[in-house]
Protein backbone atom coordinates (compact mmCIF):
# COMPACT_ATOMS: atom_id res chain seq x y z
CA UNK A 1 0.00 0.00 0.00
CA UNK A 2 1.40 3.31 -0.98
CA UNK A 3 1.74 5.38 2.15
CA UNK A 4 -0.33 8.52 2.46
CA UNK A 5 2.03 11.37 1.74
CA UNK A 6 0.08 13.84 3.87
CA UNK A 7 0.44 11.52 6.80
CA UNK A 8 4.15 11.32 6.07
CA UNK A 9 4.72 15.06 6.09
CA UNK A 10 2.52 15.74 9.10
CA UNK A 11 5.25 14.70 11.48
CA UNK A 12 7.60 17.51 12.63
CA UNK A 13 10.70 15.29 12.57
CA UNK A 14 10.02 14.25 9.02
CA UNK A 15 9.45 17.86 8.00
CA UNK A 16 12.78 18.73 9.53
CA UNK A 17 14.45 15.91 7.60
CA UNK A 18 12.98 17.26 4.37
CA UNK A 19 14.17 20.76 5.21
CA UNK A 20 17.69 19.45 5.83
CA UNK A 21 17.73 17.75 2.46
CA UNK A 22 16.57 20.69 0.39
CA UNK A 23 19.25 21.61 -2.10
CA UNK A 24 21.73 19.10 -0.71
CA UNK A 25 22.36 15.40 -0.54
CA UNK A 26 23.40 14.26 2.90
CA UNK A 27 25.07 11.16 4.18
CA UNK A 28 22.63 9.18 6.28
CA UNK A 29 24.83 9.69 9.35
CA UNK A 30 24.75 13.44 8.84
CA UNK A 31 20.96 13.36 8.97
CA UNK A 32 20.88 11.15 12.05
CA UNK A 33 23.27 13.48 13.91
CA UNK A 34 20.80 16.33 13.64
CA UNK A 35 18.36 14.68 15.99
CA UNK A 36 18.37 13.82 19.65
CA UNK A 37 16.26 10.73 19.03
CA UNK A 38 17.87 7.35 18.37
CA UNK A 39 19.31 6.25 15.06
CA UNK A 40 16.66 3.57 14.53
CA UNK A 41 13.98 6.18 15.16
CA UNK A 42 15.44 8.53 12.56
CA UNK A 43 15.82 5.63 10.14
CA UNK A 44 12.19 4.80 10.58
CA UNK A 45 11.21 8.35 9.68
CA UNK A 46 13.42 8.25 6.61
CA UNK A 47 11.87 4.95 5.60
CA UNK A 48 8.42 6.51 5.75
CA UNK A 49 9.63 9.36 3.55
CA UNK A 50 11.13 6.96 1.02
CA UNK A 51 7.96 4.90 0.97
CA UNK A 52 6.01 7.83 -0.37
CA UNK A 53 8.67 8.98 -2.75
CA UNK A 54 9.68 12.16 -0.97
CA UNK A 55 13.21 10.97 -0.28
CA UNK A 56 15.59 8.70 -2.19
CA UNK A 57 18.43 6.69 -0.71
CA UNK A 58 21.42 6.61 -3.02
CA UNK A 59 24.03 3.96 -2.41
CA UNK A 60 27.64 4.83 -3.25
CA UNK A 61 29.78 1.84 -2.41
CA UNK A 62 29.14 1.26 1.27
CA UNK A 63 27.88 4.73 1.92
CA UNK A 64 24.25 5.74 1.87
CA UNK A 65 23.07 9.22 1.03
CA UNK A 66 19.65 10.80 1.29
CA UNK A 67 18.22 13.17 -1.24
CA UNK A 68 14.83 14.89 -1.37
CA UNK A 69 12.62 14.39 -4.41
CA UNK A 70 11.48 17.88 -5.40
CA UNK A 71 8.93 16.78 -7.99
CA UNK A 72 6.98 14.86 -5.42
CA UNK A 73 6.95 17.75 -3.01
CA UNK A 74 5.61 20.07 -5.70
CA UNK A 75 2.84 17.59 -6.45
CA UNK A 76 1.92 17.66 -2.82
CA UNK A 77 1.71 21.45 -2.82
CA UNK A 78 -0.39 21.70 -5.96
CA UNK A 79 -3.63 20.37 -4.50
CA UNK A 80 -3.81 23.48 -2.38
CA UNK A 81 -3.90 25.77 -5.37
CA UNK A 82 -6.59 23.67 -7.03
CA UNK A 83 -8.65 23.57 -3.88
CA UNK A 84 -8.30 27.32 -3.50
CA UNK A 85 -9.60 27.82 -7.03
CA UNK A 86 -12.45 25.43 -6.34
CA UNK A 87 -13.47 27.45 -3.28
CA UNK A 88 -13.04 30.79 -5.00
CA UNK A 89 -15.50 29.62 -7.64
CA UNK A 90 -17.93 28.40 -5.02
CA UNK A 91 -17.72 31.69 -3.16
CA UNK A 92 -18.35 33.58 -6.41
CA UNK A 93 -21.43 31.44 -6.78
CA UNK A 94 -22.46 32.23 -3.20
CA UNK A 95 -22.11 35.95 -3.95
CA UNK A 96 -24.36 35.62 -7.00
CA UNK A 97 -26.88 33.65 -5.00
CA UNK A 98 -26.94 36.29 -2.25
CA UNK A 99 -27.28 39.08 -4.80
CA UNK A 100 -30.45 37.60 -6.24
CA UNK A 101 -32.21 37.12 -2.91
CA UNK A 102 -35.18 39.42 -2.42
CA UNK A 103 -34.21 42.53 -0.43
CA UNK A 104 -35.27 42.54 3.23
CA UNK A 105 -38.68 44.14 3.87
CA UNK A 106 -38.44 47.88 4.54
CA UNK A 107 -40.08 49.47 7.55
CA UNK A 108 -43.33 50.99 6.21
CA UNK A 109 -43.37 53.66 8.91
CA UNK A 110 -40.24 55.22 7.39
CA UNK A 111 -41.32 55.33 3.75
Amino acid sequence: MRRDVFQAIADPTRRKILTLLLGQTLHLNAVVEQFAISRPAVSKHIKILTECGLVNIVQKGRERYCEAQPGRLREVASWLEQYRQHWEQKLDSLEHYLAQLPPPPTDDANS
Partner: protein
Amino acid sequence: MNPFTPSPPTAEELLITRTLNAPRPVVFRAFAERERLAAWWGPKGFPLEVRHFDFRPGGRFHYGMHLPDGSIMWGKFDYLEIEEPQKIGFINSFSDEAGGTTRAPFEGTWPLEMLNEFTLAEAGDTQTLLTLRVKALNASPDEQATFNEGVADMREGFNGTIDSLVELLEKAASNH
Protein backbone atom coordinates in the same frame (compact mmCIF):
# COMPACT_ATOMS: atom_id res chain seq x y z
CA MET B 1 20.94 29.91 0.85
CA ASN B 2 18.96 32.92 -0.26
CA PRO B 3 16.44 34.39 2.14
CA PHE B 4 12.87 33.39 1.37
CA THR B 5 9.51 34.91 2.08
CA PRO B 6 8.15 33.15 5.15
CA SER B 7 4.74 31.55 5.10
CA PRO B 8 1.95 33.41 6.87
CA PRO B 9 2.27 33.00 10.63
CA THR B 10 -0.81 30.82 11.08
CA ALA B 11 -0.75 27.04 11.04
CA GLU B 12 -3.45 26.83 8.39
CA GLU B 13 -2.63 25.84 4.88
CA LEU B 14 -5.12 27.98 3.04
CA LEU B 15 -6.84 31.22 3.91
CA ILE B 16 -9.58 32.87 1.89
CA THR B 17 -11.54 35.93 2.96
CA ARG B 18 -14.53 37.58 1.30
CA THR B 19 -16.76 40.47 2.17
CA LEU B 20 -20.28 39.43 1.27
CA ASN B 21 -23.11 41.86 0.65
CA ALA B 22 -25.62 40.26 2.96
CA PRO B 23 -26.21 40.33 6.70
CA ARG B 24 -24.61 37.57 8.70
CA PRO B 25 -27.79 35.59 9.49
CA VAL B 26 -28.59 35.46 5.77
CA VAL B 27 -25.10 34.18 4.95
CA PHE B 28 -25.32 31.60 7.71
CA ARG B 29 -28.64 30.34 6.37
CA ALA B 30 -27.03 29.85 2.96
CA PHE B 31 -24.90 27.14 4.60
CA ALA B 32 -27.48 25.88 7.06
CA GLU B 33 -30.50 25.22 4.90
CA ARG B 34 -30.63 22.48 2.32
CA GLU B 35 -32.39 24.31 -0.50
CA ARG B 36 -30.23 27.40 -0.06
CA LEU B 37 -26.97 25.46 0.00
CA ALA B 38 -27.99 23.45 -3.04
CA ALA B 39 -28.73 26.70 -4.89
CA TRP B 40 -25.09 27.85 -4.88
CA TRP B 41 -22.95 24.80 -4.17
CA GLY B 42 -23.51 22.90 -7.39
CA PRO B 43 -21.60 23.53 -10.58
CA LYS B 44 -23.13 26.21 -12.76
CA GLY B 45 -25.84 24.97 -15.04
CA PHE B 46 -25.92 21.47 -13.61
CA PRO B 47 -28.27 20.18 -10.95
CA LEU B 48 -26.76 19.28 -7.61
CA GLU B 49 -27.89 15.99 -6.19
CA VAL B 50 -28.31 16.12 -2.44
CA ARG B 51 -28.34 12.62 -1.00
CA HIS B 52 -28.20 13.62 2.61
CA PHE B 53 -28.25 16.86 4.56
CA ASP B 54 -28.07 17.03 8.29
CA PHE B 55 -26.66 20.33 9.50
CA ARG B 56 -25.45 19.56 13.01
CA PRO B 57 -22.18 18.43 14.63
CA GLY B 58 -21.74 14.81 13.58
CA GLY B 59 -24.14 15.28 10.67
CA ARG B 60 -23.32 15.13 7.00
CA PHE B 61 -23.95 16.80 3.66
CA HIS B 62 -23.58 14.24 0.89
CA TYR B 63 -23.79 15.62 -2.62
CA GLY B 64 -23.22 14.69 -6.22
CA MET B 65 -22.11 17.18 -8.83
CA HIS B 66 -23.13 16.35 -12.37
CA LEU B 67 -20.22 16.92 -14.72
CA PRO B 68 -20.42 17.84 -18.40
CA ASP B 69 -19.33 14.35 -19.47
CA GLY B 70 -22.32 12.84 -17.71
CA SER B 71 -20.48 11.47 -14.74
CA ILE B 72 -21.19 12.43 -11.15
CA MET B 73 -18.52 13.53 -8.72
CA TRP B 74 -19.54 12.81 -5.16
CA GLY B 75 -18.34 14.68 -2.14
CA LYS B 76 -19.31 15.28 1.44
CA PHE B 77 -19.03 17.54 4.41
CA ASP B 78 -18.82 15.84 7.77
CA TYR B 79 -19.81 18.57 10.19
CA LEU B 80 -17.72 19.06 13.30
CA GLU B 81 -18.56 22.19 15.23
CA ILE B 82 -21.39 24.58 14.37
CA GLU B 83 -21.99 27.80 16.28
CA GLU B 84 -24.76 29.89 14.89
CA PRO B 85 -24.22 32.48 13.45
CA GLN B 86 -20.44 32.68 13.47
CA LYS B 87 -18.77 29.33 12.91
CA ILE B 88 -19.06 26.24 10.74
CA GLY B 89 -16.42 23.52 10.80
CA PHE B 90 -16.45 20.40 8.69
CA ILE B 91 -14.26 17.86 6.97
CA ASN B 92 -14.58 17.87 3.21
CA SER B 93 -13.66 14.77 1.31
CA PHE B 94 -14.37 13.09 -1.97
CA SER B 95 -16.99 10.42 -1.77
CA ASP B 96 -18.91 7.83 -3.70
CA GLU B 97 -22.58 7.19 -4.24
CA ALA B 98 -22.79 5.27 -0.97
CA GLY B 99 -21.37 8.18 1.02
CA GLY B 100 -17.99 6.69 1.92
CA THR B 101 -14.70 8.57 2.01
CA THR B 102 -12.68 8.11 -1.16
CA ARG B 103 -9.61 9.53 -2.81
CA ALA B 104 -9.80 12.27 -5.42
CA PRO B 105 -11.11 10.76 -8.65
CA PHE B 106 -8.57 12.59 -10.75
CA GLU B 107 -4.84 12.86 -11.18
CA GLY B 108 -2.71 14.45 -8.58
CA THR B 109 -1.87 14.13 -4.95
CA TRP B 110 -4.74 15.10 -2.72
CA PRO B 111 -5.20 14.57 0.97
CA LEU B 112 -7.92 12.18 1.96
CA GLU B 113 -9.62 14.77 4.11
CA MET B 114 -9.58 18.53 4.24
CA LEU B 115 -10.53 20.38 7.38
CA ASN B 116 -12.56 23.47 6.51
CA GLU B 117 -13.40 26.16 9.02
CA PHE B 118 -15.66 29.06 8.19
CA THR B 119 -15.99 32.04 10.45
CA LEU B 120 -18.58 34.72 9.84
CA ALA B 121 -18.14 38.20 11.26
CA GLU B 122 -20.51 41.11 10.97
CA ALA B 123 -19.26 43.99 8.86
CA GLY B 124 -21.87 46.62 9.66
CA ASP B 125 -25.55 45.74 9.32
CA THR B 126 -25.53 44.73 5.72
CA GLN B 127 -22.27 42.89 5.16
CA THR B 128 -20.47 39.80 6.39
CA LEU B 129 -16.78 39.04 6.49
CA LEU B 130 -16.41 35.39 5.61
CA THR B 131 -13.12 33.64 6.39
CA LEU B 132 -12.22 30.13 5.28
CA ARG B 133 -9.25 28.21 6.67
CA VAL B 134 -8.32 24.85 5.24
CA LYS B 135 -5.83 22.25 6.29
CA ALA B 136 -5.07 18.75 5.14
CA LEU B 137 -5.65 16.09 7.75
CA ASN B 138 -3.32 13.19 8.18
CA ALA B 139 -5.82 10.52 9.03
CA SER B 140 -4.67 7.22 7.65
CA PRO B 141 -6.72 5.95 4.73
CA ASP B 142 -8.10 2.91 6.45
CA GLU B 143 -9.24 4.71 9.55
CA GLN B 144 -12.96 4.53 10.03
CA ALA B 145 -14.42 8.02 10.23
CA THR B 146 -16.82 8.33 13.12
CA PHE B 147 -17.70 11.95 13.51
CA ASN B 148 -18.72 13.43 16.77
CA GLU B 149 -17.87 16.68 18.46
CA GLY B 150 -14.64 15.35 19.85
CA VAL B 151 -13.19 14.09 16.61
CA ALA B 152 -11.42 17.32 15.71
CA ASP B 153 -9.17 16.77 18.73
CA MET B 154 -8.29 13.27 17.59
CA ARG B 155 -6.93 14.38 14.28
CA GLU B 156 -3.71 16.28 13.94
CA GLY B 157 -3.81 19.04 11.42
CA PHE B 158 -0.81 19.60 9.28
CA ASN B 159 1.08 22.66 10.52
CA GLY B 160 1.50 24.06 7.07
CA THR B 161 5.05 24.38 6.06
CA ILE B 162 4.48 22.93 2.60
CA ASP B 163 4.58 26.40 1.06
CA SER B 164 7.81 27.30 2.77
CA LEU B 165 9.33 23.95 1.89
CA VAL B 166 8.46 24.43 -1.75
CA GLU B 167 9.83 27.96 -1.73
CA LEU B 168 13.07 26.83 -0.16
CA LEU B 169 13.25 24.11 -2.74
CA GLU B 170 12.79 26.44 -5.64
CA LYS B 171 15.34 28.88 -4.29
CA ALA B 172 17.82 26.04 -3.79
CA ALA B 173 17.18 24.69 -7.29
CA SER B 174 17.80 28.08 -8.82
CA ASN B 175 21.23 28.19 -7.19
CA HIS B 176 22.42 25.17 -9.14
